[in-house]
């Protein structure tokens, strides 16, 4: 007969563990709250970075959509007002794909087959690579290798066999090297062989422009056109042409090989008109000794010389401002009347205001994703990805540190519990439950806080655009992910020291500290 009959200790049901955890948390509320706050801050940091990156990505996409008409106009004005430069042609060739409008245009102007265009495109891609190499090496080395040639001049310069031999001789001494000189030689001869093809495109384009001359030249109002340099005048002519483009004009463009869809035509007309009208408003500033400028300066309480076109545009956004300008231009002798309605003035002003604010945002988006559009993951730039990784590390360190501290300072308690009959399993469950609860609390608070901070920060950066383009669903996904990360990290960071302490004999655990 034994008094001490040893059996296995009972397993406490989970509900009982939960009860003990909750009463423990209640009594250590202050300490637990601090741990939760640290977890929340860590998760919030991660979440802020993630949501900001998401918003930036969306804003960039939105800007591209919003500025599309502006870019389209810019493109067409340059295509219709000046010859295609070599650099421009190389860039376009490297980008175009078979069947696209640009491809068809080049085919028409140069009377080229698809195979020829394919070759041109391949060579343009290679050219880009080689020119990038020459742009990368330092000034001294470049002078040594290719003399005074820079950029696109390098390729024709090296066509001279003597020059190339010189280059090949000196090349081994350069710090950075071209992959293979033989390859480069092959490329140069191919490049040279395709020069006529490129020239065919350029001259085809020029004769197309020549054919369109009667339509294009002199369209601009002489009053505004006369005071400007030739290139500007040509651009103004083209804009005027586009703004008033009739179906017949469109047909004439198509006949000359230009590829312009009906939607593009409508967009271009609207955009060109907006531009012209904005110009007309801004130009009124300095007509006839600057009457408008002086009066506006008085209204705004600025020096006349400080008044800008954008100020006038901002001023006429209100109906009062628009009426003010109309009165002034109509009632002052010798000022060309604006010939715009009050509503139109306001519309033009609003549009140019939007574009002006977009320019600021464009700059900060570009800043956020400074590198090329290449090598991106999920649409994030490398820099952003780095930031995300770093903020995840910061988050991990924060949580692990908080949890390690809060568990190690409870080794004595663990030891006491074991003296009183707690099983290792109970201690582990206890700490897992507790850390998960703290992780969930901290994660929820942190995700919400980070969400808010991310929205606020990107709001400050991108303004209204950020709020308009909130990727809400993605942000919730990311918030969920940060929360899960917070909980898992908390649980793991608590489990490790708890496991160490739980395995030891109680008095050994008591002696740590």
């Amino acid at each position, binding site marked *: 007969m034994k008094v001490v009959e040893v059996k296995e200790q009972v397993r406490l049901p989970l509900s009982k563990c939960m*009860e003990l955890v909750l009463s423990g948390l209640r009594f250590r509320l202050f300490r637990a709250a601090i741990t939760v706050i640290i977890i929340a801050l860590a998760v919030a940091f991660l979440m802020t970075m993630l949501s900001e990156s998401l918003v930036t990505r969306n804003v960039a996409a939105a800007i591209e959509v919003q500025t599309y008409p502006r870019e389209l106009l810019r493109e067409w004005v340059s295509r219709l007002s000046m010859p295609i430069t070599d650099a421009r042609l190389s860039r376009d060739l490297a980008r175009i794909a078979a069947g696209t409008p640009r491809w068809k245009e080049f085919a028409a102007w140069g009377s080229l087959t698809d195979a020829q265009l394919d070759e041109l495109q391949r060579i343009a891609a290679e050219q880009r690579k080689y020119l990038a190499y020459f742009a990368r090496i330092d000034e001294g080395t470049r002078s040594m290798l290719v003399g005074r040639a820079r950029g696109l001049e390098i390729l024709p310069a090296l066509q001279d066999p003597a020059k190339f031999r010189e280059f090949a001789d000196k090349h081994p001494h350069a710090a950075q090297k071209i992959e293979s000189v033989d390859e480069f030689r092959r490329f140069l001869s191919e490049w040279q062989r395709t020069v006529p093809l490129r020239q065919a495109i350029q001259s085809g384009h020029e004769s197309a422009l020549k054919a369109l001359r009667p339509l294009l030249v002199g369209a601009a109002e002489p009053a505004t056109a006369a005071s400007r340099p030739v290139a500007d005048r040509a651009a103004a002519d083209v804009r005027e042409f586009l703004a008033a483009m009739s179906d017949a004009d469109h047909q004439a463009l198509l006949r000359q090989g230009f590829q312009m869809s009906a939607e593009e035509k409508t967009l271009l007309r609207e955009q060109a008109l907006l531009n012209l009208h904005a110009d007309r408003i801004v130009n009124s500033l300095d007509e006839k000794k600057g009457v408008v400028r002086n009066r506006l300066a008085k209204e705004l309480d600025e020096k006349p010389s400080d008044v800008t076109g954008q100020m006038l545009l901002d001023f006429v956004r209100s109906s009062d401002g628009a009426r003010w300008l109309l009165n002034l231009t109509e009632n002052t002798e010798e000022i060309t009347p604006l010939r715009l309605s009050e509503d139109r003035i306001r519309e033009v002003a609003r549009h140019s205001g939007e574009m002006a604010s977009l320019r600021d945002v464009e700059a900060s988006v570009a800043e956020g994703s400074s590198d090329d559009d290449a090598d991106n993951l999920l649409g994030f730039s490398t820099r952003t990805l780095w930031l995300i990784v770093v903020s995840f590390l910061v988050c991990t360190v924060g949580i692990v540190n908080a949890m390690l501290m809060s568990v190690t300072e409870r080794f004595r308690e663990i030891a006491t519990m074991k003296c009183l009959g707690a099983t290792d399993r109970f201690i582990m469950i206890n700490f897992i439950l507790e850390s998960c609860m703290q992780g969930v609390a901290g994660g929820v608070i942190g995700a919400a806080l980070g969400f808010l901070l991310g929205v606020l920060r990107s709001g400050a950066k991108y303004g209204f655009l950020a709020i308009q383009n909130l990727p809400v669903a993605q942000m919730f996904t990311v918030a969920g992910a940060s929360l899960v990360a917070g909980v898992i990290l908390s649980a793991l960071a608590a489990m490790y020291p708890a496991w160490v302490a739980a395995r030891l004999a109680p008095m050994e655990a008591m002696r740590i500290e």
Partner: protein
Amino acid sequence: MTETPQSVAETAPDAPRPGERPVIIRTLHLKKEYQMGTVTTQALRGIDVEIYRGEFISVLGPSGSGKSTFFNMIGGLDSPSGGRVFIDEVDVAQLNAVELAFLRCRKIGYIFQTYNLVQYMTCLENVTVPMAFAGVPAEETQDRGMKLLDLVGLAERWFHKPIEMSGGQQQRTAIARSMANNPSILLCDEPTGNLDLKTGAEIHAILHRLNKERGVTVICATHDHRLISLSDRILWIRDGQVERIANRSDVTVETGTIGGEENE
């Protein structure tokens, strides 16, 4: 370890020999070293004792002689550096983690010299924790806990936390806790060191009653002569070794004698 497994088996008989009192705790060459950096302290240097079931034994010894260490070993709270501990003829080293937890929870009650109360729990909760570990339903733990607190005179203070209580009150909480699951063995490390004469006497009475009425084996480290005078046997420890072990009736319990031996 000085013992090979075979020799342990030979020297650890399964049943008490006829005519002898049943042994509840037996130690064989029990050793404990504390390693602190490069310094090794020999806290126990080979202790062989037998403690009988149902006896009241006092452990005496100067400070630092190894009393608390000895208690931790026989209570299954720490692992020896050498030697063996048998509790009711079961080798403690052979028990797995859950069995050890069972032993600590149900069979042995501890009163620690440093109390070891859980700081964030109330007095009552500290007392009911071992019951919760034993799977006792919550309502029952409350009732039993309050009865135990009443027994040590702390019923009105059940909601206080350790830091809000005096040393004596904490000690009484620890005493109440040690009795939570009606253990068969009570290990008391200076159970009345912080109590006034009257409260001390009450605790002595409780321990005495547990011992006599319920047959609980009580092992007490103490300097208190009144407690020593209640005991059946006395064990002297010095420098981690058994100096002497004797029936109380064979020792003249006088302040001078025992006090003198202790303070030598």
